[in-house]
């Protein structure tokens, strides 16, 4: 296909992505290299409805505005933001290694640093939810395949419901169901015969709840993709396998699964990327005490009450993309290999 035709077909799509994703990403990367100018502070008298008038320190808006006009991006900080305590914390980690007394002390002190705490949960969540949702989706697809034709429609819809419900309120309702007095929470307490058992009081339990929730919401996506793939498994190969005497399990293992491989890789790719950006469940489940994620850190930086920390959010965003790149490179390589093997 000649270059001009290619770009005429791709034009609108490329333009949209360039304007609204590529440019902002460039701007974010640039922003992560800068911090705010040292603000000019001035003491003045402030009067509020209560406490009368007091002397407080405020920012000299005019002087700071002038600084900003001269250098709008801010003060160049190179990779300083990436290495400060709230991000990769290289100095603090060096200090930890120097002064700690053993591996468990090192680990607990590293875990105390905000980015590493978030990373620990994010990676665990990503690496557990992705395969669990994948396998669960596959099993559901295999099972739904046996359902009589008439019921398939409603069965498919109800299997998709966890994915379709607005995440915001869906998670909130599950949160209330998991209360000590909620239907799920009370049932769990009865099951384990422990009236003080709560899924929110400890980190492991909170993580388990979030991972279960993540699997529950992500399984439908795998399900629908695999279910469709199952309809396209080549009959002849299946028949040949049966003639050769393969059992049901062997047929699934040697015929069905290989034909689903491109789909599995696709789902893996998409899910790895999406699960790494986990964020909504942490807010809805009020789990920030025990579990935070990289996306949640970005949200916090931008949602502060007064000063939005753009540089900090930008640095965390770049770090997030970096980690996602590392995670998906193996899968991408497999996909590339499949692509070059099956050239159409």
């Amino acid at each position: 296909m000649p270059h001009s035709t290619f770009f005429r077909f791709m034009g609108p799509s490329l333009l949209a992505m360039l304007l609204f994703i590529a440019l902002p990403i460039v701007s974010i990367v640039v922003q992560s290299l800068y911090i705010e100018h040292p603000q000019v502070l001035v003491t003045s008298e402030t009067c509020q409805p209560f406490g009368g008038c007091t002397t407080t320190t405020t920012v000299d808006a005019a002087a700071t505005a002038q600084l900003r006009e001269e250098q709008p991006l801010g003060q160049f900080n190179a990779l300083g933001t990436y290495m400060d305590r709230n991000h990769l914390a290289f100095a603090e980690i060096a200090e930890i290694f120097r002064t700690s007394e053993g591996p468990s002390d090192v680990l607990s002190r590293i875990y105390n640093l905000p980015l590493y705490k978030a990373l620990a949960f994010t990676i665990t969540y990503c690496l557990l939810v992705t395969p669990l949702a994948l396998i669960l989706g596959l099993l559901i697809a295999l099972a739904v395949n046996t359902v009589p034709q008439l019921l398939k429609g409603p069965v498919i819809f109800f299997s998709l419901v966890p994915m379709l419900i607005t995440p915001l309120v869906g998670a909130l309702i599950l949160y209330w169901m998991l209360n000590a007095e909620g239907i799920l929470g009370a049932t769990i307490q009865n099951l384990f015969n422990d009236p003080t058992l709560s899924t929110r009081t400890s980190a492991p339990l909170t993580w388990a709840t979030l991972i279960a929730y993540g699997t529950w919401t992500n399984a439908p996506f795998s399900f629908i993709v695999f279910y469709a793939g199952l309809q396209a498994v080549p009959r002849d190969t299946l028949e040949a396998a049966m003639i050769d005497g393969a059992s049901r399990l062997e047929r699934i293992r040697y015929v069905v699964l290989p034909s689903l491989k491109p789909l599995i890789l696709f789902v893996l790719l998409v899910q790895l990327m999406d699960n790494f950006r986990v964020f909504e469940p942490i807010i809805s489940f009020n789990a920030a005490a025990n579990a935070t994620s990289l996306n949640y850190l970005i949200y916090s930086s931008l949602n502060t009450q007064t000063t939005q920390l753009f540089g900090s959010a930008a640095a965390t965003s770049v770090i997030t993309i970096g980690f996602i790149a590392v995670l998906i490179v193996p899968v991408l390589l497999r996909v590339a290999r499949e692509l070059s093997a099956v050239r159409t």
Partner: protein
Amino acid sequence: MADAVYRRPPLVVFVASGFVVLWLIIAAFPFAWTVWGSFKVQADFFSRDTWWHALFGTNTTRLTGDAFTDAGYYGAWVITRFWRAALSTGIITVCVVVISLSFGTLGGYALARSTHPYRFVILIFALFFRAMPEVAVVSGYLYPFFVLNIWGYLPTAIIVLVALNQPFTLWMMYSFFQGIPRDLDESALVDGCTRFQAFRLAIVPVMWPGVITTGLFAFLLAYNDFTVTGLVLSENNQTMVPKIASYLGQIQSQGNVMYAVAAVVSVTIPIFLLVMFFQRYLVSGLTAGAVKG
């Protein structure tokens, strides 16, 4: 013998059916609970006393005289005019799906049929574009939008959603077109058509299953979106999800949680109809060359 492939021993059917039933309960129960609870008052559905109140509607009966009430739905749809948010969502989703599919179909076709190596570069970049956390990207839009005076309008939100959806759309359409044999449009080219004519005459008739599937995901993205529509639209044209979020109240003020519950149930109904209607195409769409290579 052909049917023997699909004949299943009773044990397998039994186990499979049991599993499906178990999964359906797990998948659908919270939603069923929500539907049931949407007809109760807050003191019942969110009770910290016991969940039996939600089941029997103790406080609902005490307060309204009947175990079921439509206060949540009335409050959402009539008092706070949820229908305006529904209208906004309708407009936005239809436009996003149509525009996104148009751009993505053309782009995916080009990517699938081109033989130049730079198409892989574009695909990989698209993937990483999708990896970017949305909230950081959208926060950067605000100031330019205000300066250009395009903030708070539906078309702005539509274009942003289309752009953010392009990576996923491109990948899916690319995969579908890979599954459609090249001979179809190559023969049209040989017959003297331009590339676009070949696309229109040979590919368009057979691409619908793939388009519908991709369309469904584009629809879900626009329907359930919160980051973009919450920050780029103002109160009087906001979509359904930000409006539901506003029902939930803030730290220092109370919201109308039951309005949110009723709204969530209402919001899921169109999706139900859509999925029921399109589920045939969905399956065949994902089949027809779905990421087959």
